């Protein structure tokens, strides 16, 4: 910036003999009495100067500012923020699992069966306190024998017998209930022991699922009226434990079976045969929900991270020598579940009251193996030192343990027959995915609100709209496999939108940086502009007051 001449007081000098406008200028004019005065300025010059300053300011404000704004603005795609927050608050979808249970009572009359159904339904409705999880009974046509219908989750087969007994069919979702002949309620009676019994059995069957789902809802800020009230603290503790233990849902899991030994032997195992014999049946049953890929390895000379002969609870977490054991996860994107057979005669201290692995039924298995949440299982297998080959029979117990742990790692419920547990698993998984996707949407919305300077590319908006579309579809078809598929897509899209790369990159671009870049240019340019404007305004005010004085003087004359 350079100012060669002192600021000129324009109109002041043009109008009168007053030398200076500033208060100090009186001193100056006093000390230099012989000072000449500049000739008065023409009014046209004054007007032209005002026009010049005005046009500069107009260019800056009308052209400069919009261009600057346009070129430095951050693109933020429109997100339906309110709708997204609604999803995460659970206002957009009320998860309802309509469960159809068909009753097969071939020995009963149509009328009797209808009556029994009505009474049982009444009893169920009385017992049920959780509106999201509703058991709906229907009468299967007596002609169909095995599958009562694909939409029903459970078939109740009422068979006349001597006493009231309950038995699960191990291969199909069928519950056999025998009843004594006198238990059939009369058409007029309003209550029946059999109906209450059946309702109690059904309730017991689905109690765990109900608890799990209501636990999931409660941890995901769903309004309390959708939840079951009576969730005791120890139930919710065990559910919390099980939820943290289970892996995140994925369509494919990669199973890695590793044989680790601290010495050179055994170097060979018949793992292929053992998997085929003991684990394959369960994997086949799980196949509608998950796919599994398998690989196996043998690792010799592997020293565990803990050298103690008796492993305490603290040792278990550091037993895996992560630095040396090649347990790298699979690179295909599927989560890896590790199953490790470690050849060694270490024992686990069982004095601890809280066993790490409370899920395996037999105590022998519990003292040899433990489960690492969301990671896998280690099984300690003692062997004599000269064993070179590990046969499939020797691997039976480890693999059975692994199988039960796999179910626990995938989040399968504990009770009930296997087919029923699996259908429950698919419902729990869809609820879980739905809630996960919703909460991711909510996080994204809160992020967009919290960081006004973050850019939101259009891909994110697309992902959000796709997520909400599939969430809506999943919410409508909850309980079936279709709902699971939609929830899976919604979850994947929500994750992709949230972890958009270009959003992360520009997260930190502080305003100080902008000032550092702009100041060397804008500072020196702005000073003459602002000073010019201020001087002009000052001069304009002075002119106005002068004119007013002149007007008053004229009036006096």
């Amino acid at each position: 910036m350079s100012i060669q001449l002192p600021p000129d007081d324009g109109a002041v000098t043009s109008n009168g003999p007053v030398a200076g406008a500033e208060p100090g200028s009186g001193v100056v004019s006093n000390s230099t009495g012989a000072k000449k005065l500049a000739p008065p300025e023409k009014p046209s010059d004054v007007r032209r100067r005002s026009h010049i300053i005005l046009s500069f300011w107009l260019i800056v404000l009308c052209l400069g500012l919009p261009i600057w704004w346009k070129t430095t603005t951050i693109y933020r795609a429109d997100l339906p923020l309110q709708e997204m927050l609604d999803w995460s608050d659970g206002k957009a979808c009320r998860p309802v699992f309509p469960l159809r249970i068909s009753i097969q009572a071939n020995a009963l009359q149509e009328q009797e069966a209808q009556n029994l159904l009505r009474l049982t339904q009444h009893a169920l409705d009385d017992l049920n306190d959780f509106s999201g999880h509703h058991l709906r009974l229907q009468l299967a046509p007596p002609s169909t024998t095995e599958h009562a219908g694909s939409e029903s989750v459970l078939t109740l087969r009422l068979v006349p017998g001597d006493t009231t007994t309950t038995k699960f069919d191990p291969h199909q979702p069928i519950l056999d209930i025998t009843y004594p002949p006198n238990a059939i309620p009369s058409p007029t009676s309003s209550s029946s022991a059999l109906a209450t019994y059946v309702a109690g059995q059904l309730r017991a069957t689905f109690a765990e699922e109900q608890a799990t789902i209501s636990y999931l809802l409660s941890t995901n800020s769903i309004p309390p009226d959708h939840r079951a009230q009576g969730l005791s603290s120890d139930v919710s503790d065990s559910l919390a434990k099980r939820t943290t233990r289970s892996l995140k849902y994925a369509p494919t899991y990669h199973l890695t079976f590793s044989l680790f030994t601290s010495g050179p032997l055994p170097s060979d195992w018949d793992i292929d045969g053992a998997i085929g014999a003991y684990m394959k049946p369960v994997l086949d049953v799980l196949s509608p929900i998950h796919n599994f890929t398998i690989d196996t390895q043998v690792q010799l000379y592997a020293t565990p991270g803990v050298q103690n002969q008796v492993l305490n609870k603290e040792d278990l977490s550091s037993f895996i020598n992560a630095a040396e054991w090649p347990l790298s996860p699979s690179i295909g994107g599927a989560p890896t579940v590790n199953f490790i057979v470690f050849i060694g005669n270490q024992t686990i201290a069982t004095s601890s009251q809280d066993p790490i692995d409370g899920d395996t039924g037999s105590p022998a298995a519990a003292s040899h193996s433990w489960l690492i949440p969301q990671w896998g299982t280690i099984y300690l297998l003692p062997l004599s030192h000269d064993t070179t080959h590990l046969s499939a029979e020797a691997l039976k117990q480890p693999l059975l343990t692994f199988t039960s742990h796999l179910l626990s790692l995938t989040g399968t419920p504990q009770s009930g027959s296997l087919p029923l547990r699996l259908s429950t698993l698919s419902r729990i998984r869809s609820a879980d995915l739905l809630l996960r996707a919703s909460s991711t949407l909510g996080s994204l919305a809160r992020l967009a609100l919290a960081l006004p300077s973050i850019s939101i590319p259009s891909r994110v908006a697309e992902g959000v709209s796709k997520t909400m579309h599939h969430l809506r579809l999943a919410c409508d078809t909850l309980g079936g496999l279709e709902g699971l598929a939609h929830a899976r897509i919604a979850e994947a899209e929500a994750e992709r939108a949230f972890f958009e790369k270009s959003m992360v990159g520009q997260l930190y671009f502080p305003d100080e940086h902008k000032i550092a870049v702009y100041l060397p240019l804008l500072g020196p340019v702005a000073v003459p502009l602002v000073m010019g404007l201020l001087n002009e305004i000052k001069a304009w005010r002075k002119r106005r007051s002068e004119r007013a004085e002149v007007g008053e003087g004229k009036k006096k004359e």
Partner: protein
Amino acid sequence: MRRFLSLLWLSLLSFFTFSAPVSATDSDYHEQLNLRPLPLSSLLASFNFRSNTTLSEFEKGNFRFFPRSLAQILQHAGTRELHLRFSLGRWDAETWGARPWNGAREGGTGVELWAWLEADTNEEADHKWLTLTNALSGLFCASLNFIDGTRTTRPVMSFQPEGDHSAVDNMQLLYGVLPHEVVCTENLTPFLKLLPCKGKAGIATLLDGHKLFDSSWQSMAIDIRPICPAGGECVLQIEQTIDMVLDIDRSKRPRGNPIPRPPPSEQLPCDASKPYNSHDTCFPVDHTNQEWTLSQIFGKTVKGTCPLADEAVPPVCLQVHHSRSVFVSKDVHEKKNPDGLSRCFHISPETDMELMLPRPDDAEAASSSTSIIAAETPLLYAERSFTGHGQERGGVQTILRNPSPDTEVEFIYMESLPWFMRIYLHTMEARIASQQPHTNASSSASSYSSLIEQVYYRPALDRARGTQLEVRMRVPPASTVFLTYDFEKSILRYTEYPPDANRGFDVAAAVITILDPTTQGQEAGGKELAAAYTLRTTSLLCSLPTPDFSMPYNVIIFTSTAIALAFGGMFNILVRRFVAADEGPEAGLKVLIAKLKARVKGVKG
């Protein structure tokens, strides 16, 4: 020379016949350490580990000897054959002679990777290559993920698959090299993890980062190839090789006192053939100083054998004349090979093996030539260097010398240059360095032109791919050929410079593949060009014009000042009124002083 070649061929043949029964037998793992004393008190240690897995087991995912982590990567990236090299140092061919494995198991300085990928289109191959380099980068703790498009080439002539492939049509060869990568212990650790015995038993116990990376030259190699024996099931073979040249004097220095000191004069071996040799005058001969024990040079002994290894293969072999005595520890059985130049040792699984090569007896010392087996002469010597000066242009000169008196050497010279070295192909020439450069010009000119037989050139694209140059040429017997070309250095963008920009940019080693003369007859039929010997030149350091990196801020401030000056001046001229100097209000220092005085007076008054 012909006899020498046939000898070489015979030894190659014997190597293959030796290895064939190994792959046919049950044992799928094999390891061997070959120790070869070299002149000037150096020792070449070649570790070789080889394991097989049948292709069916590989596809099912059952891994016993084959490392699972690597197999997953191969399956995921559709890799049929893979070669990975980590190298450090320079092989001194003048002193040490021919390279181990005929140069087939070594790479240029830094990291080198080439692989045959299963792909139908170039895009698919590029995608799989990206997956492969990224995954290997994680596995080996190396910056392999920096092998991007600019560092990847598709060699046409230089590399041929080593394995047996049924369908060659949908395989693509990609080659990437990182000359700047510093190989160190963090690359050795994952390398050892891939071995079935993990460096806890067998010869791998000798491998230690301190010794390996202290050597004069070292090369770690991983080769994976499918092998289909006639009538047997196809196997996938992984071969891990470590070659290192140890400086014996350096290795023998005690750890606590590593400063080298001359030996006492009475222990100094003197060259008695010198005329001035007397009791107080000595010309030391130190190249016969082949006197060491395993624990001296490696810092430890071999701990037993890996129980998985094939018992028929002796784990340790030493190449010295049978006349020299070698001491080994108990339970180690020495077996002299019939060639008279090497012996092997069988170790029982539980013993620690110590090997001692004592100083030759006095009678032997007199004939110092027998204490070390004479180094084999390599087929070709190659040196590459930069010529020219300045920051704009330069040249590359490769000196290729054929030591054989009667055999011509035909080879493929491959360069993969970074894109910022723009070569002028028309300046490429090969000339024979003759004793009388100016005589007989016309006849030699005709021979020059025929030195280069074939050129494959793929020019660089700025920031997209590097230059690929493959030259098939020959060097006549007992002559030296200069291969030169000029290039221009381009100026990089601000962000393209590495953090240590003034260090210069590494240019990858040139790969020279010498063609096997015995297979050249079949060349017309198939495309196969078997490599008889491979060597690599050293890598080069190319310095580019390097800017001052505070430049952008200087530019911002400088332009801002210029604009502000121009704007301020123009604006002032437009809006200010010009009057004569005595007409306007007073300004400057005087006014300020007067103002101050008035104020002081006011305060006083």
